[in-house]
């Protein structure tokens, strides 16, 4: 990376610093989470410049409405990724964006962008192949649809032609696999 040093804090320190609205908190927040959040955003908003706009919006919203976050409700990233996903979905549903992309075939775009993004995945993470093999294809496709593409599980069921109950079970199994894998 061109950047000389990334700032990293523990989650407790970061939350405290964000509450105090310290400048270092903003820097740490960006350095620790921008890539993960951008990974989610750029799967929904395929245009890189648009996705970067959304990422900026996300950080502004996190920063300004941080008082709404409570550690009791779960992990910081869970809260942030929901903001990112919602703003990204708002973006593609906005009229401007629809007009801009109305002549493009959505399915093809998603596929081609996924192919592009594969080359941008962190190359230093050699474990990713192993991770992909950990999940069964049907588990991965549901998880990715809901987590990365912002589908509701109802929409995912529709899309994949699978009953709702099966969707829920597969999602849970996928996450259990992940937990095993990461532990």
């Amino acid at each position: 990376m061109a950047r000389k040093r990334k700032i990293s804090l523990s989650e407790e320190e970061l939350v405290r610093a964000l509450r105090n609205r310290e400048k270092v908190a903003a820097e740490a927040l960006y350095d620790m989470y921008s890539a993960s959040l951008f990974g989610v955003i750029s799967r929904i908003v395929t245009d890189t410049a648009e996705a970067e706009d959304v990422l900026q919006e996300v950080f502004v919203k996190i920063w300004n409405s941080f008082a709404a976050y409570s550690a009791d409700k779960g992990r910081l990233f869970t809260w942030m990724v929901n903001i990112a996903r919602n703003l990204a979905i708002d973006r593609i549903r906005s009229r401007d964006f629809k007009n801009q992309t109305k002549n493009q075939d959505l399915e093809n775009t998603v596929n081609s962008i996924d192919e592009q993004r594969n080359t941008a995945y962190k190359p230093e993470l050699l474990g990713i192949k192993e991770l992909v093999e950990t999940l069964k294809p049907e588990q991965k496709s549901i998880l990715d649809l809901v987590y990365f593409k912002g589908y509701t599980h109802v929409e995912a069921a529709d899309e994949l032609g699978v009953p709702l109950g099966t969707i829920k079970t597969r999602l849970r199994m996928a996450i259990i696999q992940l937990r095993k894998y990461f532990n």
Partner: protein
Amino acid sequence: MEDIKAYIESGILELYVLGDVTQEEKLHVETMAAKHAAIKAELEEIGRAVEQYADEHAVEPSDELRNRVLNSLVTNLADDRTFTPQRDNEIDNVVPIRRADRSGFYKYAFAACFVLLIVSVVALINAYRKLNDSNTLIASLQNQNQRFSNTVSLKDSEIGVLRDPTFKMLRMKGTPKSPASALTVAWSPVKKKVWIDMATADMPANDKEHQYQLWALVGNKPVSLGVFNADTASKDMVEMEPTALADAFAVTLEPKGGSSSPTMSEMMVLGKF
């Protein structure tokens, strides 16, 4: 406990973490999590797993974006911390940007001007000093030049006297009052001019109250030809008052400014043709 296990296994916690729940479901999960540590721990585990999953799929945004985002946060930070009216905020938002755009240029321009000013002042002082030196030099040269030209014109006159055949040279000898004294007088009856030669004079130096007076004797009548001083430094010829007639020349010591008739007891030298 069975209820809790079933609740965990229902998959609702996963949907909660994935943000795919209704508002009521959300509140319900949060209530359950607050009541039951097992549910809270499960939520934590699920959250950690999907966080790591997202981390594995991270995509680095461009490096420039970092500053853009941080600047927008810091701007907000400044807005939040200062309780100024909206209008002021607008002004505050505009002014720093302008300054950021131009401050570099003006800073360097000002520094450059200042350096130029100092250099110019130093150069001016130097030039002024040199000019003064030159003026002093010119004045002293002019002075010197004047002295030279005076000397030259005097020498010219002296040489003219010596070359002119109408001039008669007369060496006046000392009287009994001052036997050692002597003075050469040059006189041209044609041109009526009279000079005395201080270079070959042998006269005692006069004091401040007295001066020597040159007399021409025409018949037996003395005619004053002016006064002069004698000192060892004087080496020039001195032109006296003109006379066309003279049988003899004499010098007396008189009160300063001279007398109308010579004091015979103070006669120093006398010469006859």
